[in-house]
């Protein structure tokens, strides 16, 4: 997923938690079930769970493949579990390439990038959403217009700019160029505008300037928006491939997980067992993030006005 496309879908995972009504009282589930309806419901469950099992099977198969000896990777007939559970594959990954460096780089770039995005987006979102200044709306439209430009148009000149700066193959080239996209500012502005102005007014009358009111009143109220923005920014940095591929030269020094993983397949040639172990390891942080934060990824669709309204 590219940096440009990521942030749009924020989650409805929490809809479950938010909905006060029991499932049966929601639209589509009201009528008491007839006998025929109950049979159909059983079949619906079977269909959905079979679909889910098929859907998840590639990852399950990859996980067990990562535990096989390499010679059994393509055994015929195929087996899920090999002759032994070779957990050492997961350790061997780290011995083969600078895999630990990739992981460290990915965490460093993703976390730093997210912090930059948060700092820039919350401050700009505050200026656009809650302060009055001349030309505000015109500048905001300009901001939004930049959202249309696809990443592919930007990366080529961006590479040239990085060359001029002498930034090719550095951390700042991995972090900064895509840390100023307008999406975060847009998201924060939309959220800030929804906060009642009276809350701030009182503090302002008491002499608090915008900086204090931003830090002490507005920002604490925006925790959910900040959470949504953080998660999706982190994910987009973590998964970004095209730009790191272009701007990284020495993978052993500045390679992130995706480019490292991709180069790994060339490097190891036929070591599918290690490739699968590496792939599974790289999936862990983002999967954990989604599972842990599923209830807190709040109302992003509504917030960004993406529900279609």
């Amino acid at each position, binding site marked *: 997923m590219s940096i440009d*496309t990521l942030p749009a*879908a924020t*989650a409805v*995972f929490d*809809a479950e938690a938010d909905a006060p009504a029991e*499932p049966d009282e929601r*639209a*589509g589930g*009201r009528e008491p079930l007839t006998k025929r309806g109950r049979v159909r419901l059983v079949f*619906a*469950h079977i269909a*959905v769970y079979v679909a889910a099992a098929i*859907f998840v099977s*590639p990852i399950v*198969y990859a996980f067990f493949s990562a535990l096989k000896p390499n010679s059994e990777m*393509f055994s*015929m007939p*195929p087996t899920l579990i090999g002759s032994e559970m070779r957990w050492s594959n997961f350790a061997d990954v780290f011995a083969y390439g600078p895999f630990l460096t990739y992981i460290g780089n990915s965490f460093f770039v993703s976390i730093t990038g997210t912090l930059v995005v948060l700092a820039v*987006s919350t*401050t700009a979102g*505050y*200026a656009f959403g809650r*302060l*009055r*200044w*001349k030309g505000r709306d015109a500048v905001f439209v300009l*901001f939004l217009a*930049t959202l*249309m430009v*696809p990443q*592919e*148009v930007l*990366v*080529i*000149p961006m*590479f*040239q*700019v990085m*060359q001029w700066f002498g930034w090719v193959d550095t951390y700042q080239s991995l972090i900064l160029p895509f*840390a*100023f996209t*307008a999406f975060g500012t847009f998201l924060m502005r939309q959220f800030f505008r929804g906060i009642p102005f009276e809350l701030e007014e009182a503090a302002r009358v008491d*002499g608090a*300037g915008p900086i204090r009111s931003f830090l002490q009143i507005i920002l604490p109220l925006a925790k959910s928006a900040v959470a949504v923005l953080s998660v999706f920014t982190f994910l987009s940095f973590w998964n970004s*491939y*095209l730009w790191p591929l*272009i701007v990284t030269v020495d993978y052993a020094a500045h390679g992130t*997980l*995706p480019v490292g993983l991709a180069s790994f*397949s060339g490097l190891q040639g036929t070591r599918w067992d290690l490739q699968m172990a590496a*792939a*599974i390891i*790289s999936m862990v942080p*983002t*999967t954990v993030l*989604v*599972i842990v934060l599923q209830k807190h990824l709040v109302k992003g*669709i509504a917030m960004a006005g993406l*529900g*279609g309204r």
Partner: protein
Amino acid sequence: MSNTKQIPRRGTLARAESRQALGFVSPALAGLALFTVVPVVLSIVMGFFNWPTFGEKTFVGLDNYVKLFTQSPDFWPALRNTFVFALLYVPISVGLSLLLAISLSARIRGRGMLRVLFFIPVVTPMVANVLVWKMMLQPQGLFNGLSQTWFGVELPNFLADPQWAMIMVVMMSVWQGLGYNMLIFSAALEQLPESVVEAARIDGARGFRMLWSVTLPMISPSLFFASIMTMITALQVFVQPQLLTGGGPGNATQPLVQFIYNQGFKFQELGLAAAAAWILFAIIIILTALQFRAQKKWVHYEH
């Protein structure tokens, strides 16, 4: 605090606020100027130059654009592949994720967990997802292995056959992206006003009739949004063919973005790559505009 402090006149206050607003907005403005506005302008310029990564840059006017359409052997195939991919991917992805969102109705136990499960490939690194599929699609891999064991049928070598390779790139992409649209549709379905659904039910609407005449029109804004976003993503496809097939066999699965990448960073022709990127942008804009025009026919907004 009390009123001992004199409240400044409105004008002074407004001026102070403007000044402070400038402080708040300037990091974003500076970043956007440096990392978006400058590159966009530079990209336009580069498109008119013979612009190698290293060495002399010469102005060539529209030559890059002419060259793409008349002399570049991979450009037309890349355009075709991009459209083929989008034409296959968008309807399948939108259709399946809609079906999934509807299937995961309120009566399904564990739907929250199922949603998370379907969403996982969206957030795991695309590179890792592709590697998993690449393993399964090997001639001796899972697909062929199961087919031979269960049915005694030997499947074609998917990634070596031009048609199959494209189908597999689409299939892998559908699997990867399904959860994203599913969430959008789930959100829309959950916001359906019960009164309308109830009224339709009293009028005798059931099953497919209910879906076609009530549910779908009511979530059509979300359908529209998802179709546009999915189409834009599809036109920008890169990682899946790059790693699954390398664009091959030959150039059978090489999409426009991979063509741009190759021109720019394999052959060091940044000018040509910039020109091709603008063509991609133009295609995205035109197709999006067409969809916006067509939406009047099928998208219903509440007023």
